[in-house]
C-alpha cells in the first residue's frame, strides 16, 4: 500500500478523482462519461480494479485505452477493446441490467439525488439552457449504482431541482407529478440508484430507506457545519465518518505521469 500524499502534493481534482476511483470494485461493469470520471475509472483500472469492464456510451465495450480519450466518441477509446459498436448496444446493455456503476455529473442536485443538466430556472422560460440530458437519466435509470461528481456551490445543492433530468430516489409519478420512491415506478428495472455525490466539499451518500442525502466525509479543510451551510436544504451531518481519504503517491503518479500527463482534466499542482 502506497503512502498517502501530503496536502501540498495534490489538488482538489486529484482528491475527487481518487475518491471516485474508490467507488469502483474489481470485476464491475462501469459506464464512463467524458472528463474526470474517465480518469477516475482508468485510475481504478490501473490500481485496485484491474478487471473492471469499461463501457463508453458511444459504443466501445470493455475498453482498455492506453491513452486518455478526449470524449467517449474518441478513436482512443477503442484500442484494446473487446468490441467496438454503437449506441444501441451500449444502451441495450444498460437496460438489460448489466451495468454495475455509472459516473455522472450535474448542474444541480436535490436532497433525494435528483439531478438537473437541462436548464437553470423555469423550463418554459429558462434563465439558461444547458446541454440537456445526454445519457445521464439512462445510466441513472439502469445502473445498480451511480456516482455524481459536482462542483459544490450553494446554488447547486437545492431542495428541488428546477428540472429533474436524471432520476434520484424520490421522483415524479406522471401525469400528476406527485413524488414517489423510485422503486414504485421502475418495476423490473429497479436495481438501485444514486449511491454517492462527490462534490468539491465532501462525499455524500443516501439513506437506504428514505433515499435522503447525508454527509459521509468532509474534504480536508472543511467542517460538517460549513458544508451544511453550503446546501439550501437541511443537510444531515449526524453520520459523518471523518475526512475523505487522501490520494496516495501511487495514485498521483498514475494520474499525472500515466493517465493525464497533459493536465487536460486533472491539472497538475504547481511545485514550489
Amino acid at each position, binding site marked *: 500500500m502506497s503512502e498517502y500524499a501530503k496536502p501540498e502534493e495534490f489538488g482538489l481534482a486529484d482528491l475527487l478523482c481518487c475518491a471516485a476511483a474508490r467507488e469502483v470494485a474489481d470485476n464491475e461493469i462501469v459506464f464512463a462519461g467524458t472528463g474526470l470520471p474517465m480518469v477516475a475509472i482508468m485510475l481504478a483500472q490501473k490500481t485496485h480494479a484491474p478487471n473492471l469492464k469499461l463501457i463508453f456510451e458511444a459504443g466501445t465495450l470493455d475498453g482498455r485505452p492506453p491513452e486518455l480519450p478526449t470524449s467517449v466518441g474518441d478513436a482512443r477509446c477503442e484500442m484494446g477493446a473487446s468490441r467496438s459498436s454503437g449506441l444501441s448496444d451500449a444502451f441495450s446493455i444498460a437496460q438489460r441490467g448489466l451495468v454495475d456503476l455509472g459516473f455522472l455529473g450535474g448542474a444541480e442536485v436535490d436532497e433525494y439525488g435528483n439531478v438537473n443538466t437541462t436548464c437553470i430556472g423555469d*423550463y418554459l422560460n429558462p434563465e439558461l439552457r*444547458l*446541454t440537456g440530458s445526454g445519457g445521464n437519466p439512462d445510466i441513472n435509470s439502469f445502473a445498480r449504482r451511480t456516482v455524481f461528481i459536482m462542483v459544490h456551490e450553494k446554488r447547486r445543492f437545492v431542495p428541488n431541482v428546477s428540472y429533474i433530468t436524471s432520476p434520484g430516489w424520490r421522483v415524479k409519478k406522471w401525469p400528476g407529478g406527485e413524488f414517489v420512491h423510485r422503486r414504485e415506478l421502475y418495476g423490473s428495472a429497479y436495481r438501485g440508484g444514486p449511491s454517492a455525490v462527490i462534490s468539491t466539499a465532501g462525499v455524500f451518500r443516501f439513506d437506504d430507506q428514505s433515499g435522503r442525502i447525508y454527509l459521509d466525509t468532509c474534504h480536508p479543510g472543511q467542517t460538517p457545519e460549513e458544508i451544511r451551510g453550503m446546501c439550501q436544504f437541511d443537510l444531515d451531518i449526524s453520520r459523518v465518518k471523518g475526512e475523505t481519504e487522501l490520494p496516495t503517491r501511487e495514485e498521483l503518479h498514475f494520474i499525472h505521469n500515466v493517465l493525464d500527463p497533459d493536465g487536460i482534466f486533472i491539472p497538475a499542482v504547481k511545485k514550489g
Partner: protein
Amino acid sequence: MSTDKRITLQQAAEIVKNGSSLTFSGFTIWRRPFALVYELIRQQRRGLHLIEVQGGPQTEFLVGAGCVDIWESCWVGHELYGKYGANLSRKVGNKEIIVEDYSHAEMMFRFSAAAQGAAYAVTQTSLGTDIHNPEYDMLGRAGLRDGTHPHIAKHKYQFVEDPFFGAGAQVLLPPVKLDVAVLCVQQVGEEGTVRVNGQYYSDPESARAADITIAFAEEIVPEEYLRRNADQNTIPSFEVDYIIECPFGAHPTGMFGRYDVDGNFLKDFYGRTRTQEGFDDFAKEWIHGQDHMSYLEKLGWPRMLKLKANTALNYSPRESKGGK
C-alpha cells in the same frame, strides 16, 4: 438505372428542402458531415426539423445560422472544447426554436424503432423525470401534435403497463420520421455499400430509418473491394441513395483512422459565437463565399497534417488533446 450514385455537394444540399426532417451520422464531435452543414448554411436552408440521437457542433452551426425551427434530441455541446451549445441556448432563450427533450437512450430507441418499421419504441428509461412532464411537451404546446404534420407524432410519449410478464410501467415513444439522413464515413462503394471504421454510433439505424440517405465519404472505393469482406461492412448498398467523395468532409469534427477533432477550431467557434453578431462574423469568415476546397485551402496543409491520424493508432499523436 445506373449503379453509380455520385452527386455533387451542391446537389446533396438541394435534396434537403426547407422544412425537411434531417439527421446526421456520428457522435458529438466525431464524424459529422460538416461539408454539407456548411453548404446548407450557404444555401440558406430554412425551417429544418433536426432530429438527432445527440447534437454537437453541427447542431450549433445550423441553429446559429437560423436554419432550424425544431430540434428533437437530448444533448448539445462541444465536449471539452465548449461545455454547452451557446447558439441553441440563445435561441431557446429568445423562443426562436422549439426544443423537444428526450433522453439519449430514448432517442436511440426511437431511431431503432424507425429502422425496424415499428409503430413505437418501448423502454423503462427516465421514468419519474421531467422529460415525461406533460407540461413540457413542447411540440404539443405549439399545437403541432394534431396529426397533420408528417414528422410529428400525436403524443410525445405514452405509458402502458407491461402486458406480458408484469415488468411494470413502460414508456412508448414514437419512431423518428426522417426525410433525409446524411452520413460522413471513411469509405463508400460505387453502389453505396458503407464501411465505417471504429464505433459506428447510430449510423446504421439512421441510414435505414431515413427516406433518403446520402453518404459523404473520405474516399469512394470500388464496390468489389468492399464486397470481398462483406462482414466488415456497416450499411448495405441499397440503403444508400447518393454518394459523394469529400475528403476532410467532417472537419472540424474527427474521423476514426483519418483525422482527429480540430479542438482549436471548436474552441474558437464556441468562444466567438455566444452572440448572433459573433456567429454571423464566424460564418462570414469560414462559410460564406467558400466552397469545400477553398475551406480546406484556408485551413492549410500544416493544420490538416497535424490532425491526420496515425494509421496504426487511428488518431493523431501530434494533436494535443487539450486543443492547445
